[in-house]
């Protein structure tokens, strides 16, 4: 127990918790979007994230030619390298997510298989992807080149405004606002919400269900890809099972906020990131997971549908 950390490091911990939590939020959007329309936990999303981190490494090292020992870049060269890595990772993850849906879920759905069958097929895809990467990398952790020098804008109230942390906070907020607007305002967003409310009625209204579902996986893949980019840029490493812990965290965040609910995933991720930082600072890192899950259980006892309720889209028109 180390309460003095709260007084001396409060803002610093909060800031870091914000960055970590927003990365969780992006991945949990992948879970929550799919749950919203299919009522299915897409367990393979953690492996989509894992493949995204490797895509970032592949783009930076093999395509753009920056070895692990490369010196940090500057100016336009840096911006364009990071943008290519970000966009590449988002596209890679979106394609993988859509493929996962085509291969693992669509046929099962078309034949009216139970949700449990889809769940097993999701776990199967997850294991397949993880084990494939284990073989490719011989289970060795991989390091990303430090292309972004970790310079800082300055220190305010003990908070070190480091460029990568700032980026990991701003980018998810922008992505979330765009996504939120897209789902509430656009025609396709309306279609997603309609399918989420009632698949049968949407069909009657002439909505192409399969297209909407593919679109949902695509969006989930895009946000997960962005998370993979931010993760690799901030922490500069990845390993074949990096998706496991991230998947657990993001899924927890989604449940905490209310699964199926976009805003829930966003704030659930934030809450989780903050809790992890403060728990490990005050109680010690060995208590981090314990604290998080005790809080989760307590919240679910009082609000069984999570902080923001399950699938708000249903009640909102």
């Amino acid at each position, binding site marked *: 127990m*180390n309460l*003095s*950390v709260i007084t*001396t*490091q409060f803002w*610093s*911990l909060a800031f*870091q918790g914000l960055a*970590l939590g927003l990365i969780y939020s992006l991945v949990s959007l992948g879970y929550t979007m799919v749950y919203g329309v299919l009522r299915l936990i897409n*367990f*393979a999303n*953690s*492996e989509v994230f894992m493949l995204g981190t490797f895509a970032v490494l592949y783009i930076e090292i093999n395509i753009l030619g920056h070895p*692990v*020992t490369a010196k940090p870049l500057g100016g336009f060269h840096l911006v364009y390298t990071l943008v290519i890595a970000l966009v590449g990772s988002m596209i890679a993850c979106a394609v993988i997510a859509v493929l996962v849906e085509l291969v693992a879920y669509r046929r099962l759905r078309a034949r009216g298989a139970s949700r449990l069958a889809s769940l097993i097929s*999701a*776990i199967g895809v*997850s*294991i397949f992807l*993880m*084990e494939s990467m*284990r073989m490719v990398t*011989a*289970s*060795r*952790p991989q*390091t990303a080149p*430090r292309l972004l020098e*970790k310079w800082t804008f300055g220190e305010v109230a003990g908070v*070190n405004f*480091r460029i990568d942390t700032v980026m990991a906070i701003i980018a998810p907020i922008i992505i979330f606002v765009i996504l939120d607007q897209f789902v509430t305002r656009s025609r396709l967003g309306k279609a997603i919400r309609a399918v989420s409310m009632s698949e049968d009625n949407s069909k009657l209204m002439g909505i192409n269900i399969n297209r909407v579902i593919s679109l949902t996986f695509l969006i989930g893949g895009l946000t997960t890809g962005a998370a993979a980019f931010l*993760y690799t840029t901030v*922490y*500069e*490493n990845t*390993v074949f*099972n*990096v*998706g*496991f*812990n*991230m*998947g657990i965290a993001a899924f927890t965040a989604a449940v905490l906020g209310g699964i199926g609910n976009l805003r829930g995933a966003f704030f659930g991720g934030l809450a989780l990131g903050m809790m*992890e*930082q*403060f728990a*490990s*600072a005050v109680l*010690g*890192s*060995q208590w*981090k*997971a314990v604290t998080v899950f005790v809080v989760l259980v307590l919240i679910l006892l009082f609000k069984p549908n999570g902080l923001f309720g399950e699938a708000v889209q249903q009640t909102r028109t």
Partner: protein
Amino acid sequence: MNKKIVSGLAIAAATTLALGVVVTSPANAAAKKSVTLAFQGPLTGPDAQLGQDQYPGAQWAIEVYNATNPATKINLVKADSQCDGTVAANIAPGVAANKEIIGVIGTSCSGEARNSFPAYKAAGLTMVAPSASAVSLTDPKAPDRGFPVFHRVVAHDGFQAPALVRYAVKGVTGPKIYLVDDQTTYGAGLIKFAKPSATKIGVVGTDSVPRGTADWTSVASKVKAAGANVVIYGGYTAEAAKFFKALRDGGYTGILAAGDGVNTSDFPSLAGKAAEGVRLTAADVPFEKLLTAAELASFQKITGVKVPGLYSATAYNAAQVFITCIKNGALTRSAIAVCVNNTTFTGAGGSKIKFNRYGDIIGGADVGAYLVKNGTIIYDGIA
């Protein structure tokens, strides 16, 4: 996603591999008498470098012996337990069930050793470990001791930990120590034995961080808030690289130190700039310092390794223990057990090895100090 299922699959694959390799050996045995030893340690996985550094030491010892055209040749097979207790618990029964194997050179990690004990004790299979250094493995009072099958040719952490503290604070004025472990048999044990001598100097904080943690910033914040200027980490390379990076990026400028779990040749590349100046220890002296020029050339030729990695020397010594016994005609598991417990062996550089009742070397061994400089780990004398 599901870790249990996944590691189960990996284990099944690993067991098949371990057995698959060995199944071929009876054919050779028919032509000429031969016995088999297993090298067990991490050959893949996040800490693979530990095992990859050691294997050539054992390989060289055995190939040199086989080249003398002895009456009984030795086959060496690999058993990959990934420095992971769970994996070890699942592959050890496979190794034990293989009657061809009469001894195990291993394990590298303490958790692997502990979880392999039940299978090897039941099978009477003798182990000689190059680097499993947790104190409890040879502690007569510990419930998880390896008696009677376990032996090691390395000084245990009861020697290494105080030496690590000594080396970490060397030349630091007003040292304030922060201790962090990784909750493994080895890491937590090392820190436990470092604590008494560190407390005398001044400990300002401790933490215990599970393996696989991605975000180390909260730990880095705590270290900074505590005003520490010496951080000692008990754990393995992959986690240490993440931790030390987070500390340096968070503006920490003091000393970073860790034990032999981090002292692997891939640490500088994984930690990048943060590796510079990191102080490491190991109960090992660089192998090349013990070899003549001709021997080193032979090592390089046979193993394809230019600079022998950490614990090549102890892996060589572990192999020598078995080789000596096999030369003396001990060709069964029970004969090996008797021989290993009762013989005085000669290790690299002429050192004498004799095991006490619980498997430690009588007289212990020196702890070496190492320093990361310009991206390579250099030997810095005795800690």
